């Protein structure tokens, strides 16, 4: 459906996207995450035809776009849901959704499907954020795009609404069989909603893979950090396990030469704490998170780790604890970092 090869996007002298390639299958949903300013929006705007690429090629169905050949946005059949919704302020909800439709039936269908019926005649500036978001989505879907691009569609909604809409949108897309690229700054959203996910950094695609592969086998330390709390424990490879100061962990079927020094990626839920006077550290702080509780543990070695437990678990600040790796699955391994500084 969509193929991007070696895309570069410039603004004047500044480069926003560098050498980015990806493909999107029919009906597939790809989520795109990355820190502010990494170029996510620029990718979407280029695919939609609002920016001309500086280099590389984009294929949308039979269309080919490169730095020389442009296809104007209106010929691409690419829907774009803007982060700020970009509703037409002078048109009411109904007219926004049916903007270019001769036959209003699809507008009616999405209006109903997204629960906007009683707001049909409302003007955009009287809607709440969540409602605006649905109008923007309905508008894009009613125009039957061959491909849908969503730019942080759920930012600034409250978590309950967010969780609900996230799934409504996914289901709507799947039902309509429309492939989509979905930009988000919410890692949970990216992990749960995408068939695959891409992580961008500084204009480049760091990794693109299925969500749990990205989470469990991040391609880089950057990805590991970006997708959740991450700590790296020095360890030594054994034949089936890696040995660390906090215990052993399975390594899965990685090809490796034994006795290699590695850094092991541990996340807060890969660790456990138990109260123990002769343990290897103590609780520095704890944060209540509802269903879970996060502890900051200072190891006797001086390193700090975060450990997530069930919220029933309760330890006071300063309590002596023993921290252990408790992961049942293989942990990701990284080359040890070279000490930084002058060579």
């Amino acid at each position, binding site marked *: 459906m969509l193929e991007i090869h070696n895309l570069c996007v410039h603004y004047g002298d500044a480069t926003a996207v560098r050498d980015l390639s990806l493909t999107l299958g029919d009906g597939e949903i790809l989520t795109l995450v990355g820190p502010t300013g990494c170029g996510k929006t620029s990718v979407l705007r280029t695919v939609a*035809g*609002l920016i001309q690429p500086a280099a590389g090629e984009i294929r949308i169905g039979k269309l080919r776009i490169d730095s020389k050949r442009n296809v*104007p946005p*209106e010929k*691409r059949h690419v829907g*774009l849901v*803007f982060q700020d919704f*970009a509703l037409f302020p*002078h048109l009411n909800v109904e007219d926004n959704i049916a903007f270019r439709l001769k036959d209003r039936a699809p507008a009616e269908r999405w209006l109903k499907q997204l629960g906007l019926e009683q707001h049909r005649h409302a003007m955009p500036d009287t809607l709440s954020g969540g409602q605006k978001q649905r109008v923007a989505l309905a508008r894009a879907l009613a*125009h039957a795009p061959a491909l849908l691009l969503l730019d942080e569609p759920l930012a600034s909604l409250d978590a309950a609404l967010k969780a609900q809409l996230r799934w409504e949108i996914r289901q709507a897309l799947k039902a309509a069989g429309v492939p989509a690229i979905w930009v988000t700054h919410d890692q949970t959203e990216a992990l749960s909603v995408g068939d695959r996910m891409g992580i961008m950094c500084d204009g480049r695609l760091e990794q693109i893979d299925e969500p749990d592969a990205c989470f469990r086998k991040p391609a880089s330390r950057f990805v590991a950090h970006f997708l959740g709390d991450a700590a790296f424990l020095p360890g030594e490879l054994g034949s089936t396990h890696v040995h660390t100061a906090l215990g052993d962990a399975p390594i899965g079927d990685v090809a490796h030469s034994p006795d290699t020094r590695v850094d092991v990626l541990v996340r807060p839920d890969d660790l456990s704490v138990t109260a123990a006077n002769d343990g290897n550290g103590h609780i520095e702080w704890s944060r209540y998170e509802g269903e879970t509780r996060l502890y900051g543990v200072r190891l006797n070695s001086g390193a700090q780790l975060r450990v997530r437990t069930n919220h029933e678990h309760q330890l006071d600040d300063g309590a002596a604890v023993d921290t252990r790796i408790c992961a049942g699955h293989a942990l990701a391994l990284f080359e040890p970092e070279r000490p930084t500084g002058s060579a």
Partner: protein
Amino acid sequence: MTRQPWSYVPAALIAAAALAPVLVLVYMSIGADLLFDGRTFEIVLNTVLLAVLTVTGAVLIGVPLAVVTTYADLPFRRVWVALLAAPLAIPSYLGAFAFFAAFGPGGEIETLTGIATPRAEGLIGASLVMTLYTYPFVLVSTRAALQSLDANVVDAARTLGLTLPAAMFRIVLPRAANGIAAGALLVALYTLSDFATPAIMHLDTFTRMIYVDYHAFGLDSAALMSLQLLALVVIVLFFESRIRVRRERPGRVLQLPLSRAVNSTAFALAGVVVLAAIVLPVAVFGAWLVREGVVGFEPRYALNSAYAALLAALGAVIVALPVAYAASAGWFGRLCERITYLGFGIPGIVMGTALLYLGLRLPLLYQTLALLVLAYILRFLPLAVGAVRSSTERVENNLVGAARSLGATPGEVFRRVSLPLILPGIVAAAALVFLEAMRELPATLLLRPTGFDTLATYLWRVYEAGHLGRGAVPALALVLVSGVALVLMLSGEARRRRLTAG
């Protein structure tokens, strides 16, 4: 991103058209001796002083009134705005004459009330009158700028311990600098190019020198002096272009509950201004009307005026659109925009003559309404460009992108999305051009079709004949017709407020 914006081509063409009269001036000035002696210096000084004082006065009156009419919880806000913008409808020579006739020993005020008043004349008199008839430029453009500011920032300043008046100075006005400067620019250009007010007030300015030469058949030296004046215009344009505040996303609209003291001060200021700029001349003309009665006025003059001004307003906004778009697109567009301002700074009669030379090259157009309208458009384009620009800058790129990604062609996007959104700005632009075209005289006299009389030319006829009382009716008609234009402009503003209110 390397494509040139589409608007560059029409903008360049329009800039070329705007430059044409200037080139004609260059051609006309060939052979004239450059006159520059101590006297000229004195006159340049007068001109600059008049411009500086007028701009200062217009800013001092226009900005506070803009703040009050934009933010304060005024009763009858729209009526106030209409009244305060109305001086734009009164030709400044009428205002100047009314002031000249009303003040001083033996003036109308003394005749009617017996109260002795000082004469209105010289630099102070001229600055005062010019200020009264030009401050609406500042008022209108400052209001446009203020309306697009985010009120949260003011609230933030207050929670940091700043009082409201201080917040106005430190937080609001610096951000509205663009709008204030745009208005001040128009005031400066108007002042530089106006002849009647300084003449009536006995102030020797550049335009007066130019007029004298013009009337002495020294077209070449009049043209050369106009070019010298243009140097001043370019300097003003340059300084104005240096004032550029970053664009902001419009936010919540600020509403200020004003204390009673501030409210009454605001009312008093507005009242004094309206009294001086509108009530006084209307009263003076009214007094003459009573003495002389209505003779010779035909309603056709009002129709002619309105018709020509309407065509000019329509033409000007159509032409202003690409220029406004180009001006937001890049330096070349800004250059084109600057060029269109030149015409506004050249005295009307010289500009009229330059256009006459151009018109004579187009015999089909010569002495037709079309040429007159064209002259209005070239002359008043800056008014339209400024107002249109402030509204196009508010149509966010994303809206255009959204419409195009829904399959709309650029033409359709413009028609269905941009146009409805910038319509208020377009209407305001059209109204400004309309008002100016209604009161324009020198170019109208030179370029109109033979026998085509407007309110302004009729006013000139009776004024020249010394039958000032007969001027009362056309003057009132001018104010009335212009009032309709103002109401239009304001209803546009109400719409704009609704569309952009956060």
